[in-house]
C-alpha cells in the first residue's frame, strides 16, 4: 500500500516583526513530533528548501502595506487550501496601521532621507480585507499553545477550540485580583479577546489590548469607567490606538474620543 502523503504547511510573511512565526519554532517540545504529521513545505525563516504548492495549510503573518504585497497575497490564497492568519498584523493591520490615521507621506519623510525609494500603501490593512481567510488567530504575539491547537484541529479536520470571550474570563480562571476594581488601574481586559492567559493583570498591570477586541465588546461602557478613573480623552484615544488600532471596535472607539478632544 502506498504511504499516505503528509499535508503540506506553508508560512508566509508580510509586514510584521516575525514574532508570530517564531512562535512555531518556540514550540520546542512539539516541533519535531509535529513534522511527523505535517510537511513543513515552505517556511523561509526556518528552511532554504521550498516544496512547490499547492499547500494544505498556510499560516499568514503580517499586514498588507505595499503594492507588491497586495498582489502577492492573492498568489498565496490561490496556492492554499486552508488559510489561517496569525497575529495582530495579519488580523488587524498591526501597529503599522497607525499610518491609517494620518498621511503616510509624512511618515516616510520622517524616517527616510530619500522618500522616492520607498513604495508603500497609504494604509496597512488586515489580510481578510484582501482575500477570504478561513480562520483568524489573534494576539501580539499569538499564544503558541493556541497555534498548536489550530494546527492540530486542522490535522483532525475539526474547528479550533479558541474561545472569543474576554480576558476577564481568563483572569478569573487564573484567580488574579481585578486590577481595575481593587487598585483602580485602567484595564482593557473587559473588551479584549482572550488567549494570552491574562498575563498583564497577574503582573499587576492593566491589559493593553494586544489580542484585539473580543466578540461584541462594550467599549462605550469601559471607556466611561476609565473616565471615572480620571483617564483623559487624549489618553483614551491612544489606549485603543496601538497594536490593533485598525480593528473596527477599537478604531471607532478611538475616533469617538478623538472627536471629544477638540
Amino acid at each position, binding site marked *: 500500500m502506498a504511504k499516505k502523503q503528509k499535508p503540506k504547511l506553508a508560512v508566509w510573511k508580510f509586514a510584521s516583526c516575525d514574532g508570530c512565526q517564531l512562535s512555531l519554532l518556540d514550540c520546542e517540545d512539539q516541533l*519535531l513530533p509535529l*513534522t511527523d504529521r505535517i510537511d513543513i513545505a515552505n517556511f523561509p525563516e526556518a528552511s532554504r528548501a521550498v516544496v512547490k504548492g499547492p499547500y494544505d495549510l498556510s499560516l499568514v503573518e503580517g499586514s498588507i502595506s505595499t503594492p507588491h504585497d497586495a498582489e502577492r497575497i492573492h498568489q498565496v490564497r490561490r496556492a492554499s487550501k486552508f488559510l489561517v492568519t496569525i497575529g495582530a498584523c495579519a488580523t488587524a493591520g498591526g501597529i*503599522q496601521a497607525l499610518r491609517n490615521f494620518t498621511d503616510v507621506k509624512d*511618515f*516616510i519623510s*520622517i*524616517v527616510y*532621507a530619500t522618500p522616492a525609494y520607498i513604495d508603500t500603501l497609504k494604509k496597512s490593512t488586515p489580510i481578510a480585507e484582501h482575500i477570504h481567510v478561513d480562520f483568524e488567530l489573534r494576539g501580539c504575539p499569538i499564544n503558541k499553545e493556541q497555534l498548536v491547537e489550530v494546527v492540530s484541529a486542522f490535522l483532525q479536520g475539526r474547528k479550533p477550540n479558541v474561545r472569543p470571550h474576554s480576558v476577564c474570563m481568563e483572569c478569573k480562571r487564573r484567580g488574579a485580583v481585578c486590577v481595575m476594581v481593587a487598585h483602580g488601574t485602567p484595564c482593557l481586559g473587559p473588551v479584549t479577546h482572550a488567549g494570552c492567559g491574562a*498575563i498583564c493583570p497577574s503582573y499587576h498591570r492593566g491589559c493593553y489590548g494586544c489580542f484585539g477586541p473580543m466578540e461584541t465588546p462594550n467599549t462605550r461602557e469601559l471607556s466611561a469607567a476609565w473616565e471615572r478613573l480620571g483617564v483623559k480623552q487624549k489618553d483614551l484615544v491612544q489606549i485603543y490606538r496601538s497594536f490593533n488600532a485598525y480593528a473596527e471596535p477599537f478604531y471607532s472607539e478611538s475616533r469617538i474620543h478623538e472627536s471629544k478632544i477638540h
Partner: protein
Amino acid sequence: MKAKSIKVDYLARVEGEGGLYIKVKDHQVVDVKLKIFEPPRFFEAFLRGRSFREAPDITARICGICPVAYQMSAVHAMENAFDVKVDGQLRALRRLLYCGEWIESHALHIYMLHAPDFLGYADAIQMAKDHGDVVQQGLSLKKTGNELAALVGGREIHPINVRVGGFYKVPGKRELAPMAEKLKRARDVALETVRWTAKLPFPEFERDYLFVAMRHPDEYPFNEGHLVSNQGLDIAARDYEKHFAEEHVEHSHALHSVLRGAGPYFVGPMARYSLNFDRLSPQAQEAARQAGLGPVCRNPFQSIIVRSVETLYACDEALRIIDEYEMPEAPAVEVQPRAGSGFGWSEAPRGTLYHRYRLDDQGVILDAKIVPPTSQNQKVIEQDLREFVPERLDLPAEKLCWQCEQAIRNYDPCISCSTHFLKLEIDRE
C-alpha cells in the same frame, strides 16, 4: 566578455525579507547588494506623540526575536532623559531577563539557522533526521532561554513586565529557584555546544574588521557601558550621532550605518567577544580557549562558536544573579518626566542597539531615532562577500549561492529589525 550573476531572491533562515545580488565580470566581483525589501513600518514616525511609558511596549514590536533588547534600550534612553537611576536588584533582574533572550536567540541561530549550513542540510528538521540528539539539545537550550525570559518578563515574545523605572512585578527569591536547576542543565548543554560547534568545518576566511561594541568596567556588556572599538573609539551614548551616520541607499529599506571617518564597522557577538574577552566568566574563557579561539576572533564563520561561548556565559551570569538575588522592596523606582533628550543603548543578541528620544515636559515623545544592529552590519556583510566570492567562482552555481547565504547568516541578520531592513542575486558578466 563573460558575465555572470548570483541571485538569491529570498534569503532563508534569517528573520525578515531580504535577498542578495552579486555581479561578476571577468572573474571580478563588480557589485554586491544586500537587498532589503521588508516593508517599512515607520516606527520612528508613529512614536511621535506617544507617551514615554509606551516606548518599551511599542518598540518591542520592531522585532519578535529580540524584543527584550528594544525594551532595554528604550527604558535606558528614557531613564537617561529623566535622570533616573535603576540599580541594585532591579538592574540585576534586567540583566537576568536579557540572559534569557540571549540564550533563546543564540540557541535558535546556532542550531536552527546556522548549523545546517555547515553540515549541508536545508534546515534543522532535515538535520534532525541524522543528528536528532544534537537538534533536541539545541531545542532544550532554547526552551530554557524562553522560560527564563517568560519568568521575568511575563512571556518570551513581547514581554509585558518591563517599564521605565523597573518592572510591574518582581519575582520572589523562591520563584527563581526552580529556574536555577534548569539553568545548570542549560549550562552543561551550552558547554557541549561550544565543543560541538568548534568541530564544524570552517572556511579559511579572516578580515581585519573594525569591531564596535559596548564595554563595561566589570561586566560582559548587556545594558551599560561605553561604546568602544579596536581602533580607539570610546564614547558615551549621548555622543553616538556625532560619531556615526546613517545613509539611505536605493536597494535597501534599512539605512546603512558608517563610523564617520572610518566607514563600515562590525557589531554583534564577534565584536563583543573580541573587545570584551577579559570580561567573560572564567568558565566561558576556558571553553573558548579549548575550542581553539584566541581572545580575538576574525573569521565570521566562527561566530557560531562565539555565540556558543556567549550562551555559556549567559547561563553562568543568570545563575550568578539568581544566587545573589534578594527581592527588591519596590518593583520600580519613581519616574518624573521632564523635557529634554535621552540616549540609551544595550547589546542585543545581534549587536548594539541605539535609541534616542526627545521628550516634552509631560514625557510625550517629540522625536525618536532607533539604530538596530543589522543595519549597522549591512556594509560589512557586502564587503565580506566582495572578498569571499572571487576565490570561489569556480564552484558550481548552487554551491556558491549556498556559501554566500552562509556568509550572510554569519551575522544572524534580523531584517524585520533593520527596516527601517534581505533577497541573493549573483550577476556574472
